[in-house]
């Protein structure tokens, strides 16, 4: 048996662990297009901010490949998956025969197609190379403009602010973090970051990046020019589906993953940011390009590649971020657009504490917590298991809501909570 894993980040690495749980011997080859593997891209903004050093960027020990007996081909790109002849060809002209493949090619930063985008001093913040480029620019940078008010954009803004750089964020939407937060929560975060000196400009887009070779400034669509030496693109990510598409594998928004994380092609599996999986909250096939999903999917895909038959329950949009000590957690459907949803919320503006719960037919579908984020995972569990919370609806917004309050529902739905960790609750409640 020869397993080939394409992708050296969260999903690919987790798949190695999934395979090795049962198959200690078979050959594993991992192809990663970045020269550096085993690092956590989510930590790049922390590295940039200077809150961690380079050594703490790695989420696995340096000898991970050796310990797990993996032949890691780093700095090489898989160029073609030939399903008929069962061969993968790489950018360095290797031909690799395979028995089972995991396509975990991840996602890439979306690029803005505007004049000046290739100027020196324009960067995304997706991989180590981006972080190095930005770091090299810091000394020369007085002002930075971040394009995009999403997670990465704002984390980058936070990091640069931490480095003493003047930061301005141009956001297309009428609010920041529009993908994950509602207006109220976004308002609390915005107030916090503005208080710390980050300027947020809403409803604006970049029209052109100014400067002949190096960045000199930016032209916005309202005609306003901003001087800056650094531009960070934070416009979200798109999945690297090309390899799968070329091989004739079913691709929707991402690579279509079945309930065992198999693709439409025999012996080919997928996981991570490139995979389109069932969203637990909406029930629809979705791209939830987040770290926890990549790790879980990689693990299950790996087990199934090694002969297991484990179902993947589905993914859910969720995120946790913090700006200047103000924490926010968001999960599921936080801004329902369709009919039939009920929203509960409570705010204490003085303390910047906010909680919102989105329900549909008595089941929690979305959740936001700002400020006091403890116990957020209890809501997560109720969403994941699709529990009717009707009987405890009136206490869901309490700051003291915790696992103990959910116990009657755990007991009532004991067939859904069949994992060992819930058994003591089920037995004794």
């Amino acid at each position, binding site marked *: 048996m020869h397993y080939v894993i394409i992708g050296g980040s969260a999903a690919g690495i987790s798949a190695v662990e999934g395979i090795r749980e049962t198959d200690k011997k078979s050959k594993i080859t991992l192809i990663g297009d970045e020269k550096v593997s085993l690092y956590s891209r989510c930590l790049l903004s922390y590295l940039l901010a200077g809150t961690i050093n380079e050594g703490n960027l790695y989420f696995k020990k340096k000898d991970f490949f050796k310990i797990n007996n993996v032949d890691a081909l780093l700095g090489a790109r898989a160029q073609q998956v030939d399903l008929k002849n069962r061969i993968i060809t790489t950018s360095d002209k290797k031909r690799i025969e395979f028995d089972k493949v995991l396509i975990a090619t991840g996602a890439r930063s979306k690029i803005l197609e505007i004049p000046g985008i290739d100027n020196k001093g324009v960067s995304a913040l997706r991989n180590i190379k981006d972080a190095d480029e930005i770091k090299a620019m810091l000394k020369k940078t007085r002002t930075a403009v971040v394009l995009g008010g999403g997670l990465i954009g704002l984390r980058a803004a936070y990091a640069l602010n931490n480095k003493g750089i003047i930061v301005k964020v141009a956001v297309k939407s009428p609010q920041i973090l529009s993908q994950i937060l509602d207006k109220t929560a976004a308002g609390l975060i915005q107030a916090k970051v503005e208080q710390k000196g980050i300027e947020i400009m809403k409803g604006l887009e970049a029209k052109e990046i100014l400067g002949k070779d190096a960045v000199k400034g930016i032209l916005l669509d309202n005609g306003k020019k901003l001087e800056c030496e650094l531009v960070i693109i934070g416009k979200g990510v798109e999945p690297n589906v090309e390899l799968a598409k070329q091989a004739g594998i079913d691709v929707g928004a991402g690579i279509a993953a079945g309930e065992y994380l198999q693709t439409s092609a025999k012996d080919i599996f997928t996981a991570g940011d490139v995979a389109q999986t069932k969203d637990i909250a909406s029930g629809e096939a979705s791209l939830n390009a987040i770290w926890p999903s990549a790790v879980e999917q990689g693990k299950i895909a790996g087990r199934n590649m090694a002969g297991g038959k484990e179902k993947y329950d589905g993914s859910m949009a969720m995120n*946790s971020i913090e700006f200047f000590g103000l924490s926010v957690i968001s999960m599921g459907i936080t801004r329902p657009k369709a009919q039939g949803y009920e929203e509960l919320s409570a705010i204490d503006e003085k303390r910047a504490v906010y909680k919102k719960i989105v329900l549909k037919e008595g089941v929690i579908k979305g959740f936001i917590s700002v400020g006091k984020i403890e116990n957020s*995972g209890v809501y997560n569990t109720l969403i994941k298991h699709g529990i009717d919370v009707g009987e405890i609806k009136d206490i869901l917004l309490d700051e003291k809501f915790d696992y103990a309050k959910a116990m009657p529902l755990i007991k009532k739905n004991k067939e859904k909570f069949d994992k060992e960790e*819930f058994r003591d609750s089920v037995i004794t409640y």
Partner: protein
Amino acid sequence: MSPATKKVSANIKNEKALKIFCDIRKCVACKTCELACAVEHSKDKELLKAIKETPLPKKRRHVSDSFGKTLSVGCQHCKEAACVAACMSGALYKDKDGTTKQDKDKCVGCWMCIMVCPFGAIDRRIEEHVAVKCDLCPDRDDYACVAACPTGALFAGTIDEFEKRIREKR
């Protein structure tokens, strides 16, 4: 080692006893476990000194009301630990013995673990900006909370042992 750490209770750690369970019918919300936990995680491991520490030592168990009943809950060391999957820095990990451990130096305080823990068993230690949870008392031969529990609600062992105990006493 202080005298407290030498104390050995009936719930000695061994290969099997790596989890702590609460018999909700016996918990009377006295919070002795919370106090014992905080003291065990203080610098001096003595109550009188611990209460003077800055920052105050932090408990890793939560005693909470559940509609007239009470529960003492902490990290359940889940087999498929959601916190470990969510931990983007690699600070949380599964140890060979199946317990969920934390390398505090790697924690960046992103709180992804808090976002997914079904039990609300992970807290923020604001002063150090790291997540804290039950570490199974590495400096003791037993568990501080279990040893301190005056009603026998807390129990260290396997889930099967716990279940057997509950059934026998019913």
